[in-house]
């Protein structure tokens, strides 16, 4: 089995608080892997460690058999690791099209070009437009992000990650705050991603998780409780206990 993304004995300490406790995670190539766990289990912290947004206290992160623990975020993106954020981090004054062009330019390696105008880089614009149409954003392509409804903004969040054409995509609660009807649509978009793209997903909606994932890891208090196929996870009494014991937040 080849792995797209691995961690080895990963620890992250914030002062006296151990947010990530000896996590050794293996995400297989092409997997639809979900990361679940009660609030405060350290799921987002783990994503932040994987992407380089945070530096681990100890342990290592391995992306496609290469140790990237000391690499800054932007290098990891160049190696095919992209993410979305749980809380939108967008470009408020840019239109949807401009935002995605910005991301496409970066992937195409032309974002540092400083002489010819953005509009002269036709291929990047075509790429961005086709991504917008894939996500059903074409009709709002010229609307400033800040004027778009939340559901559409959420889609831009995903478009920005997809613009990098990642081989490993980390989705941090992509449907958070999106109305139920729209979240189904959103997951259909994610489900349509080519199988070569490895997806690691954090999600609270267990229906979605069990329909989407082929592998689930359960994180509790910063440590991995268990990892298995969805059916086994659903039957695991320890997992039930974690969720029933914390039913109010599940």
């Amino acid at each position: 089995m080849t792995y797209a993304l691995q961690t080895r004995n990963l620890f992250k300490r914030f002062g006296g608080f151990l947010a990530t406790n000896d996590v050794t995670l293996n995400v297989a190539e092409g997997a639809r892997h979900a990361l679940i766990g009660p609030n405060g289990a350290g799921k987002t912290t783990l994503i932040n460690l994987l992407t380089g947004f945070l530096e681990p206290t100890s342990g290592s992160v391995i992306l496609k058999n290469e140790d990237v623990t000391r690499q800054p975020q932007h290098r990891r993106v160049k190696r095919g690791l992209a993410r979305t954020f749980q809380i939108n981090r967008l470009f408020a004054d840019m239109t949807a099209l401009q935002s995605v062009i910005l991301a496409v330019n970066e992937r195409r390696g032309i974002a540092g070009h400083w002489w010819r105008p953005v509009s002269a880089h036709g291929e990047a614009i075509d790429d961005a437009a086709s991504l917008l149409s894939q996500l059903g954003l074409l009709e709002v392509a010229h609307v400033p992000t800040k004027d778009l409804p939340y559901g559409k903004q959420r889609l831009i969040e995903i478009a920005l990650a997809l613009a990098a054409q990642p081989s490993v995509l980390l989705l941090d609660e992509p449907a958070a705050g999106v109305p139920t009807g729209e979240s189904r649509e959103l997951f259909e978009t994610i489900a349509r991603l080519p199988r070569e793209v490895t997806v690691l997903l954090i999600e609270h909606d267990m229906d979605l998780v069990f329909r989407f994932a082929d592998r689930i890891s359960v994180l509790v208090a910063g440590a991995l409780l268990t990892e298995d196929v969805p059916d086994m996870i659903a039957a695991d009494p320890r997992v039930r206990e974690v969720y029933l014991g914390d039913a109010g937040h599940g």
Partner: protein
Amino acid sequence: MTRRDASRWHPAEYAFWALPIVAYFVFPDHLALLAQIAIAALFAVSLDLILGYAGIVSLGHAAFFGIGAYAAGLLAQAGWGDPVLGLACATLAAAVTGFATSFLVLRGADLTRLMVTLGVASMLYVLANKLTDITGGLDGLQGVEMKPIFGQFAFDLYGKTAYVYCTIILFVMFWIARRVVHSPFGLSLQGIRQNAVRMPALGTPVNARLVAVYTLGAAYAGIAGALLTQTTQFVSIDVFSFSRSAEVLLILVLGGIGSLYGGILGAVVFMTVHEYLSGIDPLYWQFWLGLLLIVVVLFARGGIMGTLRLASKVRA
């Protein structure tokens, strides 16, 4: 995608750039002031590159203006009085200084950047004051003699050559800056200003971009400083002063940040009002200038450019 491409020149822009030509004929007695306006405008454009586009706040932008001014002055004093050569050397000196100090502004938030930029400029001020043998200290740098431009156009008493020279340099540098801000590099700077946290997740080497634009902004400021030296044939130590850093920030805010034109409009209005007010009320003109700035900042969001944009939208 049938939208107006912002990188194409708007008809209003052609009209705008006809104004300096008109001004030459309409105000033949004020060419010295007009040259000063062009220099202030270029200086404001240089600040706009780093503040308006990349979002780096600075209270010490005079550091690079001063480096350019002294570089051009010292070169001319040493007998290398060719203006174009002076500009080139001043640009290089300011760019090197900008590059070297850019690493100090990468870290930290706005407040840290204000302090760091302020600190760099005041250190240079003290240095210029201390190195009296080279800079002339508080007396200023004397004996700056400029040769004719291209060996052809000597600086005259009426300031004709100076005005045309400054305006052409302003236009050329503006044109280059305009290309830069509409390029993919310019777009990525706006991305950094709007959401610096997101950019690395797109694969952007944020620090490298900031170093590049800070160096560019410094080079631009150096050119403005060199123009001041060459047109006045003198360097005063106040090229490094805090008030010069503060003034260029006022000019830019007055005109509107993030449009390049804002800096130019701000310079025209600020310098004209300054000249007019100090003429009619030599004692209290700063009071009225302050009042104007407060009114603009409170009631005309986005400065002069913001107001013009709003007006053109309302009409359309």
